[in-house]
């Protein structure tokens, strides 16, 4: 591993409570400023990788190497927006800073900035139930960004959105990533999304969960519809799909 690695798993094996191997000797690392997509079929341990990287789970064996251990250096976005339904948009976004005991004027200015970053101006006092699915996800992203993290972990954040909203969110996420210069790890089961977003795609296979391939996506940023319609886009997607099929083997269709 190069010394600049922000966060890495080294030879990590992890088991579920029942003793089933969730991950088998997984090694992966994130370099500063990268956008890495982690793809694979359901049940291949993608979410477990995120949980280990975030320090929410301890590995059974192997090491988690992290340059970001102070609270707030690492932001996380879950598959569901995971908002407090009784709290307003700004109260939800302010939560990480409050848990970190920051001063209230600092909280106010950081929250206002995060609201602006994700384009939620005018909805500050709305409750989650009053927002659309896409807007709720923006609240979750703003909450992850409010601590100005160096690293953002995302677990299928747009899986529940319709395709049009998802594509728009993808573009906005890329714009944020480029502007803020943070490192991103994005879990998805959509190869389309992975090839659109990432600088590098890691492919995982199930039973036991392991990384079977690593594919660079050399297309330049900013990426938009032109990249989606590029022949190289389709070729990369095809290559990833083939590797996934190969990994799944004949007995199982993911």
């Amino acid at each position, binding site marked *: 591993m190069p010394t600049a690695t922000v966060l890495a798993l080294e030879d990590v094996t992890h088991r579920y409570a029942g003793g089933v191997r969730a991950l088998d000797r997984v090694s992966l690392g994130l370099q500063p400023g990268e956008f890495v997509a982690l793809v694979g079929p359901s049940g291949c341990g993608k979410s477990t990788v995120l949980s280990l990287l975030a320090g929410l789970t301890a590995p059974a064996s192997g090491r988690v190497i992290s340059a970001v251990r102070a609270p707030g250096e690492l932001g996380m976005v879950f598959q569901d927006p995971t908002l407090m339904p009784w709290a307003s948009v700004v109260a939800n976004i302010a939560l*990480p800073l409050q848990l970190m005991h920051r001063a209230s004027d600092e909280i106010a200015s950081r929250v206002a900035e995060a609201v602006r970053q994700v384009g939620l101006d005018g909805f500050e006092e709305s409750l989650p139930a009053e927002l659309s699915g896409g807007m709720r996800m923006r609240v979750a992203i703003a909450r992850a960004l409010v601590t100005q993290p160096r690293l953002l972990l995302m677990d299928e954040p747009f899986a529940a959105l319709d395709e049009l909203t998802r594509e728009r969110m993808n573009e906005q996420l890329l714009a944020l990533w480029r502007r803020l210069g943070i490192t991103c790890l994005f879990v998805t089961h959509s190869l389309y999304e992975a090839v659109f977003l990432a600088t590098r795609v890691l492919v995982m296979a199930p039973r036991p969960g392991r990384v079977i391939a690593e594919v660079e996506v050399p297309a330049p940023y900013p990426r938009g519809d032109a990249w989606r319609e590029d022949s190289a886009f389709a070729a990369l997607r095809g290559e990833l799909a083939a590797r996934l099929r190969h990994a799944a083997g004949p007995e199982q269709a993911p």
Partner: protein
Amino acid sequence: MSGAAALSLQRWLAPLVLGALVLLAWEAGVRISEVPVFVLPAPSMILAAGFEAGPLLLSSAGHTLRLTLTAFVAAVVGGVLIAVLFTGSRLLEAALYPYAVVLQVTPVVAIAPLVLIWVGVDNASTAVVLLAWIVAFFPVLSNMTLGLRAVDPGLRALFRLYGGGPWQELWRLRLPAALPYLLSAMKVSAGLSLVGVVVAEFVAGSGTSPGLAWRIIEAGNRLQTPRMFAALLLLALIGIGLFAALTWLERRLLARWHDSAR
């Protein structure tokens, strides 16, 4: 008139019209069949008896309401505090919960004489509040315990990610998440407080406890059936008032975010 307005009018009007019809039939039936007053008085006689004993009944109603509210507030505070302790310690919950259930399933009428002996017949009001509390606190305890645990695991992970401590988790996450559970328990608990007070007053049954229950016993002993009905009516009004107030509170606090209130 819009459909929604018509429906809401119908919701108010239907029970009122039905009630009026039943009262008319009752009045007519009693007058025609000449049932003795001490068996079934006509609504007009109940009303007259109510006015005649007005000050007495109202002061008794005030007494009953005061005891009910005291027991209710104590039940809510006690139930919430014990539930919070349970959330902090599974061991404590395992040790205490069975006894809370025992207290709940033992009929309050059966415990009342003991409590009266312990607290003293002179302190009938204290005994009544204690007995009503025993009946009313359990729904708060069990619902609140459930509510404090019914927390989104994703949000708990988020609290851990940012180094949130147990007090922050309790204050910012568990208590707000439990609010809908608490409010629904409070509606049950308020009704049970009133039942508890009335039952306890029946058992305590002496002139030292001047609540509505005692007025009913007293009027019954004297065969003043219209007055019994008038006291009963006041008890029902107290019950309805408590329920309506708590339903209003629930709507107000939950309307914007919880499915149950929308």
